[in-house]
């Protein structure tokens, strides 16, 4: 875990003091709402349908037990006893009070956390692979590189008012759990022929109104140079990105308009100017940061074989654990998707329990996933049964990772001012309906957004659902064939939309048709769709 140094802490503490003053002046009417609104947004505070919402940054989705307990404390002290983990590996609180914000942010700062750059046209929270430093399929831990990006991008004066928000993801594995092709910049750690680690650079991906997959503009970038290269990309975007039309302001539009080759040429040209300025840190600085991410001391004699005679436990192990690079260890995903519950929500008590489990069993680390679940990255297989029993008692032992009821959902119209339709109730209904057959269905990723902005990642769903407003009524479009993984594709709309009950029935029809079409029980829905195309599903849904 990275620990703040004196500069990190000073920056955050100063920001809390500054915002305390700004809030006081706003409450005394010394500054107008027009002037204050951008200030509160820079501190992650939105005004939503029912109350203020605070989005707290969780850099690359990593927290320790001390920080998770603070998140629980905030839920209990300042909210209504729960929080919502988001698709950017952050957490949102839905019932904030402006007058309490300064004290809340001071509490957050006391555990090296903050909420700035979780809104606005700046570089947002850097996301990463939730299995970082633990996955057997990893080349190297991506988080030191993400952390250096965090430091570089925090309050970067040149990039605080970009044409539009900017999202960066970093992964250290060819198995893409960070959706790097769907980010403004996606970075993948790779090795050259000499075995040296570098970065493959993708630019111009994204979801939202105009979904696009990113383009590779550099197959191999030495890690010694990557910060100046990032600076060059952002400079080209900052200079040429459109500011005249909010819907065409993301970097993906610029990359698409110029063409990836021309965009890459301009970046290289800019990089030639930036690189000599000495922005890249010396290797010792990257090594200093990397040292913070040293994995916990693992038991070299940890047993691999464990007692799986309890069928519920065995099923949970089969579904919710993932191979660890160390023998005798495993990666545990704690599902926040019990069918019928709100995807991504966790109560303060659950957060405290997870913090305890992380401290006791998982090297004191917790990861937030972009699929709105939580991960304990370093668990001895021999401890799994004890851990599972605690999860069962806390309502956190749902065995559904990457299955039909493990649905991503944005807050939708139940909370969000931007939404056109509710998304959570759709996810809840689908999860309840599909859970009984999900073991048979295998991997099936359903993703629900309540508006075109796509926070629910509907374009990356094997089955995606987009809520829209149709003459004042909620309406839902059905999309098929998306993926946010290494085989990334964008889902396509199947046909006319449905009402709330109709979309659930339509998804059931799609799944019933899949079961008759799959080549064998192991063929995923996505692979069946890619093999047979949309027509059979269109026929099943629309007749």
């Amino acid at each position: 875990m990275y620990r703040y140094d004196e500069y990190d802490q000073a920056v955050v503490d100063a920001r809390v003091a500054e915002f305390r003053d700004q809030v006081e002046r706003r409450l005394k009417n010394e500054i107008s709402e027009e002037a204050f609104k951008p200030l509160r947004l820079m501190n992650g505070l939105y005004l939503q349908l029912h109350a203020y919402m605070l989005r707290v940054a969780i850099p690359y989705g990593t927290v320790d037990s001390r920080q998770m307990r603070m998140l629980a404390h905030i839920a209990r002290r300042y909210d209504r006893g729960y929080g919502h983990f988001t698709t950017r590996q952050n957490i949102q609180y839905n019932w904030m009070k402006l007058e309490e914000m300064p004290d809340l942010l001071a509490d957050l700062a006391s555990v090296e956390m903050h909420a700035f750059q979780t809104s606005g046209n700046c570089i947002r929270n850097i996301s990463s692979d939730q299995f970082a430093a633990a996955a057997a399929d990893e080349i190297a831990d991506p988080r030191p590189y993400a952390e250096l990006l965090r430091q570089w991008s925090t309050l970067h004066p040149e990039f605080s008012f970009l044409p539009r928000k900017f999202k960066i993801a970093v992964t250290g594995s060819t198995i893409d759990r960070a959706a790097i092709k769907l980010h403004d910049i996606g970075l993948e750690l790779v090795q050259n022929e000499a075995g040296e680690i570098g970065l493959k650079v993708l630019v111009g991906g994204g979801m939202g109104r105009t979904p696009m997959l990113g383009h590779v503009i550099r197959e191999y970038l030495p890690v010694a140079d990557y910060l100046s290269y990032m600076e060059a990309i952002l400079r080209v975007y900052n200079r040429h990105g459109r500011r005249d039309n909010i819907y065409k302001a993301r970097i993906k539009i610029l990359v698409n308009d110029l063409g990836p080759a021309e965009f890459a040429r301009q970046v290289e040209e800019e990089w030639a100017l930036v690189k000599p300025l000495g922005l890249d840190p010396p290797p010792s600085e990257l090594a200093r940061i990397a040292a913070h991410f040293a994995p916990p001391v693992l038991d070299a004699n940890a047993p691999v074989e464990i007692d799986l005679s309890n069928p519920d436990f065995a099923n949970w192990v089969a579904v919710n654990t993932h191979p660890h690079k160390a023998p005798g260890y495993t990666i545990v995903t704690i599902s926040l998707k019990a069918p019928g519950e709100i995807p991504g929500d966790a109560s303060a008590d659950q957060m405290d329990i997870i913090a305890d489990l992380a401290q006791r069993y998982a090297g004191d680390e917790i990861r937030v996933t972009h699929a709105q679940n939580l991960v304990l990255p370093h668990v001895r297989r021999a401890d799994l049964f004890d851990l599972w029993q605690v999860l069962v008692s806390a309502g956190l032992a749902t065995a559904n990772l990457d299955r039909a009821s493990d649905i991503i959902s944005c807050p939708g119209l139940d909370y969000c001012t931007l939404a056109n339709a509710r998304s959570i109730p759709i996810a809840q209904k689908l999860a309840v309906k599909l859970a009984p057959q999900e073991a048979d269905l295998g991997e099936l990723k359903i993703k629900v957004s309540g508006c075109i902005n796509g926070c629910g990642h509907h374009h990356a769903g094997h089955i995606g659902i987009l809520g829209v407003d149709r003459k004042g009524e909620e309406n839902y479009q059905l999309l098929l064939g998306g993926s946010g993984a290494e085989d990334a594709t964008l889902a396509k709309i199947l046909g006319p939309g449905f009402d709330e009950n109709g979309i659930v029935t339509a998804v059931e029809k799609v799944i019933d048709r899949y079961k008759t079409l799959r080549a064998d029980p192991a063929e995923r829905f996505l692979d069946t769709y890619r093999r047979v195309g949309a027509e059979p599903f269109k026929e099943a849904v629309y007749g």
Partner: protein
Amino acid sequence: MPRLLTGNRLETGDVLWWAGSDWSLHIRDAVAVDDDGEALIARLAPQERINDLVLIDVDPTPDGWRPRSTRERVRAVGPSVRPDFALPSLPVDAI
């Protein structure tokens, strides 16, 4: 068509409804502002105490005002997925 004036309280973000001489947390207390709405906003907005002032269309029903848009019904009641937080203004299933 009747219109109500609504906004969010600066200090807390609470949803408020104009009740004739003051604000209420409950849509059941709201009074129709109709043609006076814009003038009311012009008078209240400079006070800078209520954010996002807006006029919304509602229908009168035997149970009280029913906002025409789903969005405003959700605002009036609370999140449909958390009935435990619902305000006693409209039943959750009215959304």
